[in-house]
């Protein structure tokens, strides 16, 4: 899957989880999305896992600093 396609798909997932139109970039962080806290983080993670068909490690769940890092992990695992 191309990087662009991953971002496209992530934007769809984010918009669905946070119930507003969101276009994510590599620099998007939790402080850019008002409702992105530890509770929605769990939902987001599992939706991304379902969509791309892999499991994040605990280290990834705790350590991701922005969407760019999330994309790197997705590319490594798919």
């Amino acid at each position, binding site marked *: 899957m191309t990087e662009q396609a991953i971002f496209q798909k992530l934007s769809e997932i984010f918009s669905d989880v946070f119930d507003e139109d969101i276009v994510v970039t590599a620099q998007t962080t939790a402080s850019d999305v008002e409702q992105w806290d530890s509770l929605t983080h769990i*939902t987001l993670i*599992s939706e991304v896992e379902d969509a791309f068909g892999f499991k994040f490690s605990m280290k990834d769940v705790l350590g991701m600093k922005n969407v760019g890092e999330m994309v790197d992990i997705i590319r490594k695992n798919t």
Partner: protein
Amino acid sequence: MVFSSTVFLFAFLPITLAGYYFLPRRFRNGFVTLASLLFYAWGEPKFVLIMCLSIFMNYLFGLLVVRREDDAYRRGILTMMVISNLSLFFVFKYLNFTIENLNVLLGGILPQTHIRLPIGISFFTFQAMSYVFDVSLGRGEVQKNPLNVALYISLFPQLIAGPIVRYETVAEEIQNRQESLEDFVRGIRRFTVGLAKKVLLSNSIGLLADQAFGFGEASQLSVAMAWLGVLAYAFQIYFDFGGYSDMAIGLGLMFGFHFDENFCYPYISRTVAEFWQRWHISLGSWFRDYLFYPVSRKMGPLSKRVKQRWGKQAGRLAPSVVGLAVVWLCTGIWHGASWGYILWGVCYGVLLISALIFQPVFKKLVKKCGIHTQSPGFALFQIARTMLLVLLGYVLFRSVTLGAAVDYYRAMFALAGNALTDPSAGFALRNHASVLVLCAVSSTPILGFLQHRFGGLFVSETVKNIACMLLLILSTAYIVSSSYNPFIYFAF
């Protein structure tokens, strides 16, 4: 040893600082570790051995957990680590309580234990567990030298009442840190501000809280006095614990350590969830990383079942609901072995879970009523509502027994045949008016805002230094003239 005591301020701290900066770098870690053990042994000459046991045990678990890469092995070691730490924690903190309650059920057949609580055990046990968790997750190097683990767990600024420094935060600084004059000056200022919060604000306003909560009969406590008392307690505990955290962060800076913030103006929170992101942040993030995430992540199958039955939205919420329930039960238990704390934790759990479940309903309601959510009026309403819930929580937290808490609630809502107000309430209000105003102002970021907005005198280094000196002199005068007054969080 207590930070706000003459022996700490005029003997322990200056001697430790002088020794630290006099010694060559390679001896500094060993020296601070030794000083920290002495600091602990000063108040707990026997229990210092328990802490040493905890250090040694987790040092070994750290070495073990990184020996092999495979997940099953690591999970096994982590399980053993958690069981060992919690067993030690259980014996010293919860065994008396457990036997007491079992005896109620079994008719007193078990011999009652009377084990004393080693000070700070809740903090250093959690900190020690963080070391092994972070090492296993690759968030910080494993320590080959047990002295470094000892330094991390026993470092005296954060040993007794936090912040619970996660290993990841200081892993790098344990081996390579650069002390600087700039940090040292910031550290002194931060420490002084914390000291002043504790002795000038918390201890003074605490008298009012003690007066209200020391009521004899609920009918004797007027409504005004009850509300005044719980408000005073809110300030007392915030400036006690917040002040302690400032002192810890300041002391850390003096030795070149940078700890994360533990408080961020909790009383201006708009929701209860936000309150817990601003209050005792280090405990919240400990529970989030090491309990909430792992538990919620295990709820995949439950989530799917709920989704089939009640729809997509419910399925998504299910893992968070279970995670929150577990975390808040544990948060209650962590604070102390009593039904009051457990109930207090459960209440917060229920509040946060309901907020999560009913959020879509609230959103629709607010939209339907045409309320502008960004308006200052709505923000004020939200802050007041959150504060009200927090105050109601404090009654449970502060009361000695559940019965006393119920009586206090009855007094607050005029259900105890009590008067609305009485002369003692008016007298107390007049007596503590200036401290109350100071507390209220210091609970908000107003001073920071003024500095930012007007600059000039507010940011002048000379003014800051003079203010700092004055606070130090005033605080010292209070410490010398008053009796022993330990921190509230020493009891946890």
